[in-house]
């Protein structure tokens, strides 16, 4: 449960251009099993993620990247969230990415980067700690 007394609401999203859905599909199943509410979308432009996050009033945004497009897209999403004053939304990122890109994303305001091979239980536990 989130402080609002409702289940933690998570927007899971990935680019329509990226054919790798497996990570996000399995994360979605794990979060639902843990009682969280999951909104699952795909986007063409980063601003679509911000728009959905606002409309759905989510607690968390989880983004997945497996084809190296993450830096630019994450940066635009973080800027969009700031512009919409969505400072309370926790943004997490997962997928295949270079080690040296992780600190860059953290600097942009991403709360945590989960690499390939992460146990989904770790993601559940982390979100409960942060938003439960």
């Amino acid at each position, binding site marked *: 449960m989130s402080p609002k007394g409702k289940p933690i609401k998570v927007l899971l999203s990935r680019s329509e251009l990226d054919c790798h*859905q497996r990570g996000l599909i399995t994360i979605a199943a794990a979060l639902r099993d843990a009682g969280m509410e999951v909104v699952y979308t795909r986007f063409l432009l980063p601003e679509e993620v911000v728009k959905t996050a606002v409309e759905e009033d989510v607690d968390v945004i989880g983004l997945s990247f497996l*084809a190296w497009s993450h830096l630019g897209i994450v940066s635009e999403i973080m800027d969009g969230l700031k512009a919409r004053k969505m400072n309370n939304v926790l943004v997490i990122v997962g997928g295949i990415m270079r080690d040296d890109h992780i600190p860059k994303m953290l600097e942009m305001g991403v709360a945590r980067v989960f690499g*390939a091979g992460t146990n989904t239980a770790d993601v559940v536990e982390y979100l409960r700690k942060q938003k439960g």
Partner: protein
Amino acid sequence: MFSKELMKEVKELDQKWLEEYKKYYDGKEFKKTTYSGIPVKTVYTPEDIAHLNYKDMAMPGIYPYFRGVYPLTYQAQPWVNQQATAFGLPEQTKERYSKLSQEGLAGYEGREPVFFMGSDMSHTLGYDSDNPIAKGWVGMTGAAIDTIQDYEMLFDGVALDKRNITLGMFDTCHIALANLIVAAERQGISPDKLHGLTLNMFYRQMYMEIPTFSPRGALRINRDFIKYCSEHVPHFNTVNWATYDVTECGGNAIQEIAFIFAAIIAITDECIKIGLNPDKYLSRFAFHVAAHIDFFEVVAKMRAMRRMWAKLTKERYGCTNPRASKININIKTAGVSYTRQQPLNNLIRGTIETMAAIMGGVTSLWTTAYDEALAIPTEQSAILGLRTQQILLYESGVASVSDPLAGSYYVEWLTDKIEDEATKLLKRIEEMGGWMKCMEAGWFKKEVNREAIAWRRGVDSGERVMVGMNKFTKEQEPVPVFEYPDVEKISIERLKKFKAQRDTKKTMASIAALKKACVDVNEDRAVGLVMPALIECVRANATLQEMMDVLKEVFGWGLID
């Protein structure tokens, strides 16, 4: 298959074994399954294959070809090294590939090495470099290729009549082939001299969440494409049956075969409707299969696929041309079996999987670079993928004998089991209305996703062991990275200049003609028009997106949920 006397001896020995087993292990059961969840016994005997006829097992090069499509497997002609490496600008892709070729890349008999190129994700979905949707994707995990000018740079100095070209472009493959034809034409080479294949995977939304042509539109454009190619580009494979991707998305070996066979039946039936001869066009189909970490399952799967293919072509479609019943298998070692943790372990996984592919009778082989789970492969890791194959070929002896595991009670049983289960699942799909119905209902995707989730649970709980990831773990070490800077910027500038220099009126006229051709084909008024219209567009300097937008509009495009 065995005499009564022999079976009696088998039973006696079986009994003796059972007594010994009970003595040693106190009757405790040890249950194992294959990677795909097929339960296996602890030991196999002639009893497990007694129901098979020796005739069905045949010999390499003899129908039903499951022991191999040629009388010899590698002794006369080793498998082809089909390592893909494409990213950055066209000339960068070419340079990386030339370097890899110099490391001893083996091509098809008497031909230069295969040039396996592909576009980045935004381009494979038909977005030019300057589209805002493509921002951040240009030149990542594939080359940035917008125009005929880019293709000419890519093929500059490449003898297009001597090299097989693999066009890794998915739904933009028709446009890619049109570009290749025009590039060849400018080298003085006619389309009938071109050899290669398209990664045409029009069906891939079965298991993958990626926009594609609508199922109906995909059948229409591709039957048109197949007709054109069988008449004008006869040495080019028209559709690539990527069971590989079913596995990568989570599917098991049974689903991998049954799902793809359902799609094969759909397009084959569609081609028959327009009067094409299966004997001809089925010979230009090939499989792209995953070698996963379960060694015996991979070998058995490859053998089962060849047998199912041979039966399908002969029994269902009445093919009499042996070439149509012989299917070549391209293998890529499974990316999904690799781990980000302790990446050098992936070299071991790649070796096991490569060996399975070889013993299964592979035609062309791509050993995945060990760092694929981390990043775009470095030059060094790409070469190691090739070296894995070379060591197995020249040093290990695994390639000396054709179908070396034939006759193994376990391998023969598993081959038969996989074929049997896949045939049953295929029948179920047909009873549900076939490929198109199941596709539109999103049934395939649901099935694959369920398997993916079950796999994840198994890995998370530790029940499914992945060494270095959920067992024997240690601190992560950084790995070297590979990148080309400024690709997006340069690509956009080039595109802008290209558009400024062309005769726009002529380009737009070619696009209008393309639209008319596509509408006629889609509405069943004509066949064989799309490719000639695309070739005219390329000659008139149309860009990828300008052409693809027309195809999307006419044949339908999007995600099925």
